[in-house]
């Protein structure tokens, strides 16, 4: 792969990842997660995400009403826990359906196009 193709790949991968991280965060927050635990969960699940992208994203999802956030001050270190809301769960379910549809479509397309 030449340098231009690598640059193009990096751009497209970034675009692909951007949408994926939103979906993955909603799925992972079905149980309460604080920022760093979510970061670790996503990384371990094979969806590496940069911290400086994830934290602002969590706030945006909270503003959109897809996540709710609560500060837990009972532990030694206060942490903000994010949990998916009812509407967030609906969005996640819809995204999951789309994801599966896309997966089968791409798989079919790939098979059809394979000589």
């Amino acid at each position, binding site marked *: 792969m030449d340098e231009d193709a690598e640059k193009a790949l990096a751009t497209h991968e970034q675009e692909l990842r951007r949408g994926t991280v939103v979906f993955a965060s909603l799925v992972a927050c079905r149980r309460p997660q*604080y*920022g*760093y635990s979510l970061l*670790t969960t996503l990384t371990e699940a094979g969806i590496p995400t*940069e*911290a*400086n*992208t994830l*934290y*602002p994203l969590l*706030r*945006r999802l909270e503003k959109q009403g897809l996540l709710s956030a609560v*500060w837990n001050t009972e532990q030694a*270190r*206060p*942490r*903000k826990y994010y949990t998916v809301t009812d509407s967030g769960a609906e969005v996640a379910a819809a995204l999951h359906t789309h994801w599966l549809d896309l997966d089968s479509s791409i798989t079919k397309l790939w098979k059809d196009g394979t000589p």
Partner: protein
Amino acid sequence: MTVLTGIYIDNVIRHLPEGSRSDIAAEITATISDMIDDRLGEDPQPSPEHTAAVEREVLEELGDPAVLSREYSNSPQHFIGPKSYPLFLWTLRWILPIVGLIALLDNIVVTFATTPQAHLGEAIGPAIGNTVTALLTAFAVITILIGLGDRRVDDDALPRVPGRQKVPWTIDDLDRRDIRGRQTRAEAALGLVFILALAAIPFIPTTLLYVGHLNRGGTFINPDLGTGWLVGYWAFLALLAAVEIVRFVTASTRPTVAIIGGIIDVAMAVFLTAAMLTQPVFHPELTSASGAEVQQVITVIAIWIIVVWDQVSTWRVIRGWR
């Protein structure tokens, strides 16, 4: 929290809205602490040097605080966004030509009306300067107003402009106006203006361009030039004007019209070359005897450069439309 982390967090939150600062600061602080702890691992008593190195590593991973701050603010990082850009372009396209034309005409009229013996050069200089100033001012005003509006209005409040649709686009919205025809008409109109200006050259007094003292306000053309040459000159211009009128009326982009125009163009260039190389066409008092010949040769070269350029650009346009 160390001094370094404190400074980093201050840099992140200082441009954020007051109400969200403490919340974001607390969250980043907790994150940085978690990341540092995770990297220090099970080491119960890490050395201060190692801790400081890990802290630097974590902060560098979080990246430029200004970028992180922008991510948090989620506010537009542009002055005129895609929401207002079509309106911005549409306004520039309509307002700037009008402002430019009014400023130019206004300055020329004022100069000729207020100066007893006005020269063309005297009017052109200030007119161009003032027109540029007027255009820049109009551009700045339009940009500022639409930029401020971009931050205040929602989609429904924006006026409808071409290319901006509130309802889903249908084929009925297609702009069916003849763009090529309009372009041809505009070029033909400009061509007619240029031909009129060329036709007026034999009558333009030298006083208009600061050289009136050389031949006591006569014309630029040699008064002894045979009438036949002048008639021929105007006849060629009349033919060119006829072609432009045909193009204007029919909005024709057919190659035939372009070929006829090209033939007349070349024939006129041959005619002018013959005129220039056989006699003094310019007024003899405007140039020294030794320089007159060189001046006429330079003029011939200029004529042919213009003709060749005109032919090439015409054919490129026609080829592009096929």
